[in-house]
């Protein structure tokens, strides 16, 4: 029987072969699945429980071969080499056997336990393919389990197979690849040389470093840790994990062997070895696959005629991105309206009435009804736009269009000094900046990675939507959707400007060459999309909701803590009023007046998480109501407010359709005007220009803490610091410039000079940073 202690199984396979789908199915997790290569960029582990057994399953980024290039590929390869999992569960895409088996053959030659899960067998029928599994098993000398991870076919059998052996050692294959004769001859000579030179302790001779000093961040393969023959073969291929720290004389001998091989075959040694594997795999595929039609890609190819069209490709991309936003913004408005009316009735007025009936004191009513109730309502009101954005992004991610975007946008991206592949992290950034920064791992050069990390914060993330929605609903009600869309566009515009600056000043040189797979399109399934969206939404709303409520209550309480009484202005100063007032002059050139210190504080809390901006405004407003509140209780009935909300919603939906098809036509909205005029934000921001300057600042300034940490992990502290300073200063320049420009009719102010002077300062700062950074680029 298999040992019952936690055995570790690593999922290894080509990108986009369904590893994460299988991982989710086996462990009940909800890791991100998408139809493009490079979705998973880090190691994730989960527990599979089956019968009495608990096995640890590890999901890894996809690799095409053991010669990893990008960071994500290295994570997977290093895991196999260093962590020595008990079993490698190799996922093979049945529809793309030849390329997938190339990796399999590399894995089998390690002589470690491997089990093959032949995934996507549901597609075999469509492709008119029949696979002779028993024959394949015999030829590879390795167990094969046909499965379909999405359809959950063959999973029980796979689980049973996993626990049915006494030891995974039974799954060590003995399959041999027939390489060119010269390779075998070379290996023999190397082996003889080593035996003659090294004596007893081969590793002592080969390496200057201690054998047991292998670390996950410094992986290496020593003699004796993998199959001897394969060790020599990888040595001939110059596997970086083997030749690191290796004996100089010995390596010279190996290099001479490599030269001999190249001379003899007129081919680089590593290519000759790869050719050997492909020769074997092709023979195998011919033997085990019967096929009638030649290609499964007919539909995909015809779709690509449109999506990758030389003329229409780019406009189609712009149209798709426009649709994502206009759908999300326009159609979320009626839902927000419904939530505002119904839940305001239920959570605020309803709770207040209930508390009045129970004779609660006024301040508790404010805390519970206006504070908690109002806070919950705020949280609920940003669910619709975020849900719709996540939904659209999920559809994009699952359809297979993401990889096409890389091709279509390549020309534009190259103009900015990046490769087309960098578009993918940017699209991911519309959801959240943190995964977007992590997604840069798939880019091939450090230059591209760092530059993309710097640009991703310009893409407005989901957490900023609540902020924009709140301001847009109060100040630009008629055209809120359009206003938010403009903010998104402006963000991209400043990304362009910054990219060009960086290209000229920071990252001199060329972007890397790239090779990328285009997956087949597939129609996203309702179930898949909904689960995907639901889990993203749930974790986002829980996190953001918590932040908003906590910040709100914290701010309200902190602001009720009197420090001393200012007799001159007859107000009580609290720690918040004081710090707000000290900092506000910094933002005066941007139009933030002294009494609008709420706005300043919100910017500071927004530094921790963008949604905290809302929490701050609401919390401070709440605390100010503590003294003034004596609102009349409104008559309240759930039924009335529901009916009102529904009728509002109906009109809203019709309006949304009108708006969607006539985005530039403004509608008249008379009702609610009065209510909006009394909104507390209107007392803080005296003019629309102040609001716009403020939103411009929020659009650009330092990303949230989580994403700064992510940037630090991916690219180092210096870059993270550079990013924070650059973005914040740029935000200040843009905000101030806009505000001062808008005030020109009242005459030129000396403050107009500030952004201009600071712009030169910013350029000097980039130049200064570039001095050291170019060294870092070289090392990358």
């Amino acid at each position: 029987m298999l040992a019952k202690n936690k055995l570790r199984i690593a999922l290894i396979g080509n990108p986009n072969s369904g590893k994460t789908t299988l991982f989710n199915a086996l462990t009940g997790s909800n890791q991100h699945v998408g139809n493009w290569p490079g979705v998973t960029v880090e190691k994730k582990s989960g527990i599979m429980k089956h019968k009495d057994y608990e096995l640890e399953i590890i999901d890894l980024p996809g690799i095409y071969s053991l010669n990893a290039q990008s960071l994500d590929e290295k994570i997977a390869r290093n895991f196999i080499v260093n962590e020595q999992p008990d079993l490698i569960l190799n996922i093979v895409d049945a529809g793309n056997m030849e390329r997938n088996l190339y990796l399999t053959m590399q894995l089998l030659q390690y002589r470690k336990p491997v089990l093959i899960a032949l995934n996507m067998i549901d597609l075999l029928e469509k492709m008119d393919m029949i696979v002779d599994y028993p024959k394949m098993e015999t030829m590879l000398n390795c167990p094969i389990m046909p499965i379909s991870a999405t359809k959950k076919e063959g999973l029980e059998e796979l689980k049973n197979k996993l626990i049915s052996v006494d030891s995974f050692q039974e799954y060590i294959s003995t399959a041999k690849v027939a390489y060119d004769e010269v390779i075998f001859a070379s290996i023999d000579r190397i082996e003889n040389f080593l035996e003659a030179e090294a004596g007893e302790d081969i590793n002592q001779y080969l390496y200057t470093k201690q054998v047991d000093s292998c670390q996950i961040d410094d992986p290496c393969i020593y003699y004796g840790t993998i199959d001897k023959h394969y060790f020599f073969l990888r040595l001939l291929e110059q596997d970086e994990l083997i030749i690191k720290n290796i004996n100089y004389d010995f390596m010279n001998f190996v290099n001479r062997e490599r030269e001999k091989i190249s001379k003899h075959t007129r081919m680089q040694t590593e290519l000759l070895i790869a050719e050997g594997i492909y020769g074997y795999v092709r023979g195998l595929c011919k033997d085990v696959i019967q096929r009638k039609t030649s290609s499964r890609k007919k539909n995909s190819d015809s779709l690509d005629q449109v999506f990758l069209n030389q003329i229409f490709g780019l406009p189609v991309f712009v149209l798709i991105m426009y649709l994502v936003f206009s759908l999300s913004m326009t159609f979320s408005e009626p839902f927000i309206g419904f939530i505002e009316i119904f839940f305001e009735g239920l959570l605020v007025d309803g709770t207040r009435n209930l508390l009045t009936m129970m004779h609660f004191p006024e301040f508790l009513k404010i805390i519970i009804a206006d504070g908690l109730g109002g806070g919950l309502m705020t949280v609920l009101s940003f669910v619709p736009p975020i849900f719709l954005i996540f939904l659209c992004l999920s559809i994009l991610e699952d359809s297979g269009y993401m990889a096409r975007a890389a091709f279509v946008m390549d020309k534009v991206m190259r103009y900015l000094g990046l490769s087309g592949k960098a578009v993918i992290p940017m699209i991911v950034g519309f959801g959240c900046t943190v995964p977007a920064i992590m997604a840069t791992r798939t880019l091939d050069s450090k230059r591209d990675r760092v530059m993309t990390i710097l640009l991703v914060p310009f893409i407005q993330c989901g957490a900023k939507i609540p902020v924009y929605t709140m301001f847009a609903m109060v100040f630009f009600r008629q055209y809120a959707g359009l206003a938010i869309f403009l903010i998104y566009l402006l963000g991209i515009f400043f990304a362009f400007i910054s990219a060009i600056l960086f290209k000229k000043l920071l990252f001199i040189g060329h972007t890397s060459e790239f090779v990328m797979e285009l997956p087949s399109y597939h129609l996203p399934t309702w179930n898949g999309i909904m689960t995907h969206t639901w889990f993203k939404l749930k974790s986002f709303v829980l996190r953001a909701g918590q932040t908003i409520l906590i910040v709100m209550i914290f701010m309200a309480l902190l602001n009720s803590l009197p420090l001393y009484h200012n007799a001159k202005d007859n107000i009580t100063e609290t720690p918040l009023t004081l710090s707000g007032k000290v900092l506000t002059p910094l933002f005066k050139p941007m139009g933030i007046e002294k009494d609008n210190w709420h706005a300043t504080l919100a910017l500071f809390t927004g530094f921790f998480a963008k949604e905290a901006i809302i929490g701050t405004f609401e919390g401070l407003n709440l605390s100010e109501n503590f003294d003034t509140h004596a609102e009349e209780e409104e008559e309240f009935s759930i039924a009335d407010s529901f009916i009102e909300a529904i009728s509002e919603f109906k009109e809203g939906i019709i309006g949304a359709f009108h708006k969607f098809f006539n985005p530039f036509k403004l509608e008249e909205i008379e009702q609610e005007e009065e209510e909006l005029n009394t909104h507390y934000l209107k007392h803080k921001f005296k003019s629309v220009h102040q609001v716009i300057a403020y939103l411009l600042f929020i659009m650009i300034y330092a990303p949230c803490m989580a994403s700064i940490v992510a940037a630090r992990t991916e690219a180092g502290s210096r870059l993270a610091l550079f990013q924070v300073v650059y973005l914040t200063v740029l935000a200040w320049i843009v905000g101030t410039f806009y505000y001062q420009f808008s005030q020109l009719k009242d005459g030129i102010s000396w403050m107009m000079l500030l952004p201009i002077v600071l712009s030169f300062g910013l350029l000097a700062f980039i130049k200064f940073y570039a001095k050291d950074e170019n060294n870092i680029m070289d090392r990358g």
Partner: protein
Amino acid sequence: MWFKNRGRKPCGACPRRRPLDNSLESAFEDEQYKIINNPHRKSFELGLFNGNVIKVIRNNCNQRNIIIGVADSRYIISKDIARHIKVEMVS
């Protein structure tokens, strides 16, 4: 100056202008080619190994990448790489 280099840009990429070059970069769209010599390891390992037959799906003069089909896979390959891959048309 920006206009200095205008018109001087080599369009080796354009199959109509340099049909005799036997690199993948100047291969024609919708034609099948056999790989004669591919020195680029990553694309080699993806299936562009010597002797394999591929199909050129997209190759435009004004794009920096080409799209090729290898068995059931489609790849975007930048012309910087394609330039070094030698191919031969399959009739």
